[in-house]
C-alpha cells in the first residue's frame, strides 16, 4: 500500500526518492509495529509496557536481529529508521515531511491497509473503500502536507465511514471485546499473584511458567531479550498452565478463555444498581467481582478535527474545495463533520454463572 502512495507522490512531484531514502521509508513502514508485545494493546495495558519505546529499543540495541539486518544493509539505517519513526521527525533533505504523512496521519498507508485487510479477514465489506481513487488524487501542498483533489470528496467520505463502520461493527464487537476484557483480567490476576509472590507457593506456576513471563509482571524493568521472548504463544501457554493452578480465579479465567466460555454483557450507561446486582450474584457464587465483573469502555473518533490534547493537528485530511482552496475535510463534508465527534461504548461483562 505504501508503494502506491510513494508512486503517486513521485509522479505528482516529479521527484524520485533516492535508493537510501527508499530504504529508510519502507523499513520504517514495515517496522512501525515492531515493539508490540503479545496480544498487542491488551498486554500493554496490564504490563505497563510501551510498544513505541520498545520499537526504539529494538532498533537501537546492538544485539537484536532486526538491527543487524538493517545495519548490514547500511550502517546508518537503524538510526535513520528510528529517527523517521519519531513523532518529532520534521523531514530531511532526502525524505521530505510529506512522507511522514504517509507513515502517520489520518490518511496514512497503515489505515488504508488495516481497514481493507481486517474487512477481508472478518468476512465483511464494511471496511472497503475506493483506495485506488483516493491515492490517485493525492497531491503535495506547498507546506509539504498531503491533500486530496476535489474529485476525491465522495471517496474520502466513504473512507471515513468505512473506518467508522469497522470500529462499530468489528473492532467494538461484543464477542471480541469480551475475550479481550477477560484476557486483561487473566493477566491482572497473574500480576497480582506475582506481586504477592503467591505464584511461588503453587508448584505448577513455580515450575512451569517461563521466567520471562513472570518477570514481565514484576516491577523491575524487563530486559529486551526477555521481552522479545514473549509472544502470543507464550500467553496461550500461560493459559494452559493456569488450568492446573491452585488459585480458583486464575484457573477459571484461563480455562474460560481457552474453552471460549466468553463473558456475557449488558450495555451501558454505567449505574450503581446494575453493578450491585451482578456483584451480589457473583459474591454468592464465591467469585471475585474484580475479576468476573468487568467494565469495558472504548471510544473512537472516526475523523479527528483539531484537538489540542489528543491528536496531531497536522494530521487533518485536507481537500481542495470548489474555489481551489485547501480546507479541512470536515468543513467540506457535512457527513464527515457529523463523524468528527467521539463515539463511546460502555459495557459490563460478567461470568455466565451470574446471568
Amino acid at each position, binding site marked *: 500500500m505504501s508503494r502506491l502512495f510513494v508512486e503517486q507522490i513521485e509522479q505528482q512531484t516529479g521527484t524520485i526518492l533516492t535508493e537510501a531514502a527508499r530504504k529508510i521509508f519502507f523499513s520504517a513502514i514495515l517496522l512501525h509495529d515492531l515493539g508490540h508485545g503479545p496480544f498487542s494493546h491488551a498486554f500493554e495495558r496490564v504490563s505497563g509496557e510501551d510498544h513505541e519505546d520498545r520499537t526504539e529499543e529494538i532498533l537501537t540495541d546492538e544485539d537484536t536481529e532486526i538491527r543487524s539486518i538493517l545495519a548490514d544493509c547500511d550502517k546508518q539505517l537503524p538510526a535513520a529508521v528510528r529517527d523517521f519513526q519519531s513523532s518529532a521527525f520534521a523531514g530531511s533533505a532526502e525524505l521530505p515531511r510529506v512522507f511522514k504523512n504517509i507513515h502517520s496521519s489520518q490518511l496514512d498507508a497503515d489505515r488504508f491497509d488495516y481497514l481493507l485487510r481486517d474487512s477481508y479477514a472478518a468476512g465483511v465489506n464494511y471496511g472497503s473503500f475506493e483506495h485506488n481513487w483516493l491515492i490517485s488524487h493525492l497531491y503535495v501542498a506547498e507546506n509539504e502536507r498531503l491533500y486530496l483533489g476535489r474529485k476525491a470528496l465522495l471517496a474520502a467520505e466513504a473512507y471515513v465511514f468505512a473506518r467508522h463502520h469497522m470500529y462499530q461493527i468489528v473492532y467494538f464487537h461484543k464477542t471480541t471485546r469480551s475475550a479481550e476484557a477477560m484476557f486483561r483480567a487473566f493477566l491482572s490476576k497473574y500480576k497480582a499473584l506475582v506481586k504477592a509472590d503467591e505464584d511461588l507457593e503453587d508448584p505448577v506456576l513455580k515450575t512451569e511458567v517461563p521466567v520471562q513471563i513472570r518477570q514481565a509482571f514484576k516491577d523491575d524493568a524487563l530486559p529486551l531479550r526477555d521481552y522479545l521472548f514473549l509472544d502470543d504463544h507464550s500467553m496461550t501457554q500461560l493459559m494452559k498452565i493456569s488450568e492446573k493452578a491452585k488459585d480458583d480465579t486464575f484457573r477459571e479465567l484461563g480455562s474460560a478463555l481457552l474453552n471460549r466460555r466468553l463473558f456475557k454483557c449488558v450495555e451501558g*450507561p454505567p449505574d450503581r444498581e446494575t453493578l450491585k446486582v451482578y456483584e451480589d450474584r457473583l459474591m454468592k457464587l464465591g467469585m471475585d467481582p474484580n475479576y468476573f465483573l468487568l467494565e469495558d*469502555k472504548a471510544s473512537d473518533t472516526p475523523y479527528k*478535527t483539531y484537538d*489540542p*490534547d*489528543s491528536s*496531531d*493537528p497536522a494530521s487533518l485530511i485536507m481537500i481542495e474545495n470548489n474555489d481551489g482552496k485547501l480546507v479541512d475535510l470536515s468543513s467540506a463534508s457535512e457527513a464527515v463533520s457529523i463523524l468528527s465527534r467521539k463515539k463511546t461504548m460502555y459495557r459490563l461483562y460478567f461470568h455466565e454463572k451470574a446471568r
Partner: protein
Amino acid sequence: MRTVDKLQQIQKIIATFPEQTVVGRTRMQKTIYLLQRVGLETAYEFNMHFYGPYSDELTTDLEIGGASGFLTENRSNTNEGLPSYSFTVHDVPSVEIPAQVRNFLPLLSVQDPTILELAATYDAFRQKGRTPEAALESLHLKKGYKCDNGRDQMAIGLLKALGLEA
C-alpha cells in the same frame, strides 16, 4: 474504582469550580492529573501528548458521563474557529473525596490553564526520573514560549504548593 465512582468524583470536583463548570479540556485533564498526584483515587493512566500528560480513558469517561447525565459537555468554537469544551454539573453527588484532595481544589480552580499545563508536564518529566534541571530543560524544549514571563517558575511554585517534589 468503577466508572460510576470515578464519574461521581469528577462531578464533585467540577462542582467546586465557579458556576460548577470546568472550562477547557486541557484544564480538566491537567486538574485531574495533579489531583491524582495528591491522592485522588481515580487511577487514570496518563501519557505524554502535545499539551502534556493526557488520559484517553478520562476523555472517554467524560464522553460517557455526558451521554449518561452525570455532566453536560458543551462545545463551542473559539475566535479562531477551533472547538472549545466546557463541563458543567447540575447535581452534586453525596460522595466524599479525600480531604488532602479537597483542600487543593480552591487553589487549582483559579489557575491559568497554561500554568496547569506546565506544572503537569514538568511533573510528568520528573516522574520519568529526570533531575529538576533536566525536567526544566525538557519543559522549555517542549513548551517554548509558554514558559516565558516566569510562567515556568509559577508552575514549579504550584507543584510546591501542592506538596509535590518539584
